[in-house]
């Protein structure tokens, strides 16, 4: 038997503890059940694409940090790859290794934030969140050592990276890898088999495989649906073809699968890190690139597998020192396309959980 009540509209956000930034969902509720949902974007729109048109090619790098601010390295990398493709710049070997190492560290850090906030949305009162942040702190420390800041790294440069690894970096990283591995196992004990989490997240917010491909989902959201599509394997940029790792996939594309895919990806990232730390050669870290890059007129699209999905930069050059057009493919924005389909019919609590399982960053969605 279904009890019907008068539907009412609930504005979730823009200021709400679980919207991961300033996002607003206009939910129509029938009692506890969501019957309609309209996402409202734009509260964090800063016009980065427009700003990029007025800056030099290297001046855009600090802007890209501010897209997905929990994963600035991968944004940096995507942009830098696009400009390098456009200008035909080759990158020294050591710089490629450093890029891979930093990207994978960043992926672990970003996934820790995603998983932590997902579990926090599920209602595990801040404990897993703070555990994840405790581990993330180790990575942030390493980034601080590497480039002097803890969140907005601006580390990649056109033709390489900004600075070489300090002497104490690799020993600290070697120490970090086994530590992190044991901690991931520990946190799996914490909530992986928890009955309440299974009941809350399993089978909830299912994104069918076909829909996922159709909406252009990428990253853990796509892989959670069982699609084995990871740009590091499908279209290996940088030197990802030299490393051995697996692509974890989910089964049915529910919240739990997305959560598990993220955790497994952290393990795979640790594998890549281990290999990269062993193989990293000595040498130059930056190609011979002038301060003001002037790529020839043309356009290039480069993409990387960021923690949220495929981060792409479409850079159009007119031969001047500033990009003519710099389009950013924001994975979070695309992942949110099917938000309504997934949430309608579930309850308010599931709404929060499903939304949390996307692990979006509003800086990237609104740009």
């Amino acid at each position, binding site marked *: 038997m279904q009890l019907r009540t008068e539907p009412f509209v609930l504005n979730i956000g823009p200021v709400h503890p679980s919207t991961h930034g300033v996002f607003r969902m206009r939910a129509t509720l029938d009692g506890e059940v969501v019957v309609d949902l309209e996402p409202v974007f734009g509260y964090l729109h800063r016009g980065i*694409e427009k700003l990029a048109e007025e800056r030099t090619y290297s001046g855009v790098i600090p802007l890209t940090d501010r897209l997905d601010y929990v994963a600035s390295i991968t944004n940096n990398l995507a942009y830098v790859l696009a400009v390098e493709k456009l200008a035909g710049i080759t990158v020294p070997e050591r710089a490629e290794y450093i890029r891979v190492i930093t990207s994978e560290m960043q992926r672990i850090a970003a996934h820790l934030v995603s998983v932590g906030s997902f579990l926090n949305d599920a209602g595990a009162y801040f404990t897993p969140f703070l555990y994840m942040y405790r581990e993330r702190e180790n990575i942030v420390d390493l980034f601080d050592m590497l480039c002097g800041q803890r969140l907005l790294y601006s580390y990649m440069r056109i033709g390489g990276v900004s600075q070489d690894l300090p002497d104490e970096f690799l020993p600290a990283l070697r120490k970090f890898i086994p530590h992190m591995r044991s901690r991931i196992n520990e946190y799996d004990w914490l909530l992986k088999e928890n009955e309440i989490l299974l009941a809350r997240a399993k089978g909830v917010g299912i994104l069918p495989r076909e829909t996922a491909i159709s*909406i*252009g989902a990428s990253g853990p959201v796509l892989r959670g649906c069982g699609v084995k599509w990871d740009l590091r394997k499908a279209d290996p940029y940088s030197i990802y*073809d030299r490393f051995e790792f697996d692509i974890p996939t989910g089964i049915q594309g529910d919240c739990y699968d997305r959560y598990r895919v993220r955790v497994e990806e952290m393990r795979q990232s640790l594998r890549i890190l281990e290999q990269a730390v062993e193989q990293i050669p000595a040498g130059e870290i930056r190609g011979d690139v002038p301060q003001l890059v002037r790529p020839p007129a043309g356009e290039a699209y480069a993409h990387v597998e960021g923690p949220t999905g495929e981060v792409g930069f479409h850079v159009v050059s007119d031969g001047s020192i500033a990009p003519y057009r710099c*389009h950013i493919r924001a994975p979070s924005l695309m992942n949110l*396309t099917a938000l309504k389909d997934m949430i309608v019919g579930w309850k308010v609590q599931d709404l929060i959980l499903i939304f949390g399982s996307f692990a979006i960053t509003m800086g990237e969605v609104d740009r």
Partner: protein
Amino acid sequence: MTTSLLTTEVAKQINEHLPGAVVETTDAAILVNGNSLLDVADFFKNTAGLDFDYLTTITAVDYYQYFEVIYLFVSMEHNHSLVVKARCSRENPSLPSLVSLWRSADHQEREIYDLMGITFEGHPNMKRIVLWPEFQGHPLRKDYL
């Protein structure tokens, strides 16, 4: 590695099915006629051998005389990609929407409408996405100041 399909060969295939759809072919991209964009897209999605099931990104560039909308199609099955472009005039910026084929066009077309001012015919929800509804102008146009 995602291979970029040879544009000339794909253009030939399109020409066989939809004569007059291809305007120009370069090494990097195929420029198609704006009016037949939807047919071309449908052809891409449903032709064996092409099977473009994944619309990665849509971009619009303002070239002062015209707008150019750039589509990047990827096929997950064959792991190949193709760039398709379409142009529309500044006076009447409008193109057919691809939402009926790929839902990923939904937010991206809305964003292009919002920031570049190109209307996509057939889009179910052609509203501003990041700016508020009363906003005047389209900021990513080169003449917007």
